[in-house]
């Protein structure tokens, strides 16, 4: 039965995620074995192991979970809402807009005013971007319109971010801004996790609340509405959920693209193409993908550590290109 395959998929992804988490806690300048990792995690190991695992490596793992789950779930939810498999927070400029919000607070020195200014600005800009996209593409528009709207929005956010970079008064500010462009989860502490955790959890809860309605939306807005789906509530859930989760993550990690595109696409067939059923696996799969990419970039021997956003873009962009080639007939 579909029900149990869906449960099996979620279980598989959860096990994968936990295994990757243990690997991620083990690798680094001081490699730790499984026993040492578990000892450090549970507080039964040596003081040094506890410090490395709990204070240095665990925040990175938790951030990877939050970021991947946000991008995966919001990608799947946006695809369901817009009934378009190419919708994704990165590609549509939602992440870039959230990044712009963060950069602007940095540039104008507002981030020093209050700890929460930066995530609040990120979420606000993500919300504005999502609303703009929805407004531009709602009337059953084609893939082409959606992508063009996304490209325009990304370009605008990118241009304004570059402007801030260009005018940045000193090199340190410029470096901070570059970070938002590239995206990374290294050298983060639990303070960073705390900054985004409540919003990410609230956002993902909103997205999951849209599951049933997204299923029915496969029939189109008119039929879904006559089946009792509250379209306004559905839109609010998806748009607010995306803005909260993606906006809060970007405030801490910078913009990281393509996760929301790749993950739902890979998992869709395993949930029999049901848009609502796709949400939870996409959250788990997104977390696993981000964590996997983060492990990979730490294992690759480069003179300077690669940035996570660079790695996901290197993998995601060709994937997107392949998807475009495959659906080219449909798009034009």
């Amino acid at each position, binding site marked *: 039965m579909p029900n149990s395959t869906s449960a099996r998929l979620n279980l598989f992804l959860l096990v994968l995620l936990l295994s990757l988490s243990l690997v991620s806690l083990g690798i680094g300048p001081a490699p730790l074995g499984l026993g040492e990792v578990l000892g450090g995690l549970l507080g039964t190991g040596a003081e040094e192991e506890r410090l490395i695992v709990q204070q240095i490596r665990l925040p990175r793992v938790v951030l990877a979970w939050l970021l991947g789950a946000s991008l995966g779930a919001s990608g799947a939810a946006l695809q369901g809402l817009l009934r378009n498999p190419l919708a994704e927070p990165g590609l549509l400029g939602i992440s870039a807009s959230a990044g712009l919000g963060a950069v602007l607070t940095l540039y104008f020195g507002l981030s020093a005013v209050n700890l929460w200014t930066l995530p609040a600005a990120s979420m606000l800009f993500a919300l504005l971007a999502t609303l703009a996209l929805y407004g531009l593409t709602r009337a059953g528009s084609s893939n082409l319109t959606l992508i063009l709207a996304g490209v325009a929005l990304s370009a605008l956010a990118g241009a304004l971010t570059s402007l801030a970079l260009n005018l940045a008064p000193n090199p340190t500010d410029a470096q901070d801004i570059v970070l938002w462009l590239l995206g990374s989860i290294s050298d983060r502490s639990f303070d960073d996790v705390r900054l985004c955790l409540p919003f990410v959890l609230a956002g993902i809860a909103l997205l999951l609340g849209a*599951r049933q309605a997204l299923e029915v*939306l496969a029939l189109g807005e008119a039929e879904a509405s006559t089946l009792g789906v509250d379209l306004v509530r559905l839109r609010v859930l998806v748009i607010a959920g995306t803005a909260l989760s993606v906006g809060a993550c970007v405030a801490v990690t910078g913009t990281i693209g393509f996760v929301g595109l790749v993950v739902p696409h890979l998992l869709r067939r395993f949930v029999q193409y*049901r848009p609502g059923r796709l949400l939870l696996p996409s959250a788990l799969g997104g977390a696993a993908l981000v964590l996997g990419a983060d492990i990979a970039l730490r294992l690759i021997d480069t003179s300077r550590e690669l940035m996570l956003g660079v790695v996901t873009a290197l993998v995601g962009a060709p994937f997107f290109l392949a998807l475009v080639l495959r659906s080219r007939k449909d798009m034009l």
Partner: protein
Amino acid sequence: MTLLEIKGLEVELAGKRLLRDVSLGVRRGELFGLIGPNGAGKSTLVKAIAQLLAYRGQILLQGRALERIAARDRARRLAYLSQEDRVHWPISVQDLVALGRHPYRGSWWPGGGSPSRSDRLAIERALEATQVWDLRARRIDELSGGERARARLARLLAVEAPLLLADEPVAALDPMHQLRVMELLQAQCRLGTTLIIVLHDLTLASRFCHRLLLLHQGKRVALGPVEQVLTPENLRRVYGIQALTGVHEGQGYILPWTCEPSVHFAAREGASI
């Protein structure tokens, strides 16, 4: 007994009046056809009944104003099949039909659980009635046009609402599938369901519908049994055509035959009515 009553219905969209003072009553167990040329307001009328458009006037279901019935409750009393022959994701036929049970599912998180026994039975009945039982595990994008039309119809039937609305359910089908779908709808009526369908094909309308409403430029031209609506005068005036009429197996039918150029032109200009 009247199931649905419409009084003085007016619909205006972007400054254009699409329906003007339309009144009608639909009886329980009736197969009621909406006919009229392109742009007559047939789809608009169905959408207004389905509460998809803002309107003035009254639409009463069993004496209760439809817009005052809560959405979920209304969804159990009235089911709607749109003209758009499209399902947006390649889900299976079974999953598609199961969407018809949405009005009966709990709204609480996480997703209303698995379908109840009555849901499963309703889904099975719908799959069997539309003869798509054998296709239930197939993906909707792998079906032929006729199979997809029946699968979408099964989704409509699965709601098990007393009133079904279907906007051109046979428009894109070949004659065999047209007849098959119409016979399915007829069978549903015999079971007590009331159906309002938009039809373009006058022969099918005359063959299957109990009563017809003929619309033209948003206004009601005729309402009643087939032979009172599809009169030579109405056909000439509204459609600008002449039709053959006949009786076969005790039932009247009509067959559009030629257009009347002068009248057709006048009708297009909106001068003759």
